[in-house]
């Protein structure tokens, strides 16, 4: 039984004043097993965000279906921008999707501790660095203990060290609370370091050109030689 079964018969962007309409997906299918960490790798502007939005139920303007393994699964979504409420404190932002009350605040506080931001609980998001804001967004996504976690280039525009720290954090959080992950990126290294399945996309319309299971041990993930090897194995399609 797959955790997410995506079947998009057709998805078009309508023609707008800004440009002509275009077909993004036609006959696209992807099954994601429970507990899998799937990296969706492809060029910018391909339709990867659209795919996540369809899975999240934000985009319903398509023909096809998205089925989940559990009835009304809890969805966490780490957007490309952190999308925090600037007028609420860090703690309030993490507690937002939780039931209101003392229990929710306690869970949010514990979650903030896990992402290393306990000290900033009462700060407002705009006073935080981008890396810190992303941690808050991660804390919010994990606070609801998601069954399915959607991540849209959540570590983009951070410096390499900052991105590496956040990848570590993500691995740690997932070790504590396993979830099925759909992770969109255009960075092959990031995909190889995190995923246990890499799906390379090309378009348009979007199609799967490679579907590569990865069984790397954590020692292998830490070795850059091994990672480079896998990156080469991914072939020349995706430059990254």
């Amino acid at each position, binding site marked *: 039984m797959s955790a997410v079964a995506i079947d998009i018969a057709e998805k078009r962007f309508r023609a707008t004043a800004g440009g002509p309409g275009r077909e993004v997906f036609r006959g696209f299918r992807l099954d994601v097993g429970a507990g899998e960490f799937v990296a969706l790798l492809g060029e910018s502007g391909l339709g990867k965000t659209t795919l996540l*939005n369809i899975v999240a139920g*934000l985009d319903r303007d398509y023909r096809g279906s998205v089925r989940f393994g559990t009835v009304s699964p809890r*969805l966490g979504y780490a*957007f490309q921008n952190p*999308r925090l409420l600037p*007028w609420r404190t860090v703690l309030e932002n993490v507690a937002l999707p939780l039931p209101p009350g003392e229990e929710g605040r306690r869970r949010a506080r514990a979650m903030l501790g896990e992402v290393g931001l306990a000290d900033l609980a009462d700060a*407002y998001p705009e006073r935080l660095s981008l890396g810190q804001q992303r941690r808050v967004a991660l804390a919010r996504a994990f606070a609801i203990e998601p069954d399915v976690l959607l991540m849209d280039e959540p570590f983009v525009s951070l410096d390499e060290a900052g991105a590496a720290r956040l990848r570590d954090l993500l691995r740690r959080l997932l070790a504590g609370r396993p979830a099925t992950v759909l992770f969109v990126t255009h960075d092959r290294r990031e995909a190889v370091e995190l995923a246990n399945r890499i799906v390379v996309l090309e378009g348009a319309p979007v199609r799967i050109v490679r579907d590569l299971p990865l069984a790397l041990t954590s020692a292998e993930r830490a070795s850059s030689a091994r990672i480079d090897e896998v990156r080469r194995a991914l072939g020349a399609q995706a430059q990254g």
Partner: protein
Amino acid sequence: MSTPKRLLLTATSLLALLLFWQIAALWADSRLLPGPPEVFEAMVRATRTGVLPESIAITLARVAASFLIAMTLGSAIGILLGRSVALNELFGPWVVVLLNLPALVVIILCYVWFGLTEVAAITAVAINKIPNVAVTMREGAAALSRDLDEMAQVYRLPRLRALCHVTLPQLVPFFAASARSGLALTWKIVLVVELLGRSNGVGFELQTAFQLFDVAGILAYALAFTAVVQLIEIGLLQPWERRANRWRR
């Protein structure tokens, strides 16, 4: 600039205005342009008889009632129009018509249709203010962040929770802008409404003073009322705005 320094500057500026007024009064030397001492005297006199505080209280009550009605209805209408393109196309022109209807016409029509009553007076003021609020709030509602909306949707925030935490905070600047311009507009129109069809309040006293050519009395009422409105602005509106904006860098 530091607060004491700013206060000092404001005080100096107001003192200069008083001085200018005094000089003009001395130069004109007429009953029709009394100086500050005469106006102050008129103010003290009207306060002693109790008419001035009573009139201000009555007028303030009318301002408060019509202000609250106009802000509530105007915000609701503005948010609806800003959120729905269809509704905006249907009712947007109505708002424009109302916006351009002279205040005096609304007042006269309300008095003609509903009689010279309290309800008519407050309705007239509210109707004058509602389109202004609606237009400002419509701007705000149309500019609501889609990103945050989607976030609220993904995390399945209940409607009321999304309204409190996601939608309304985005509308605070627009609400503050329409509240500020609203207060100024409302109390000016309330005076006209009182002058035309009420037998108490600041507007009524102004009319009495007008008939007696009592310029000192007119200025006494005007200044006292302006001072009260300023106090409301400084004591109520500004602290609320600061609180609502404390998250800004």
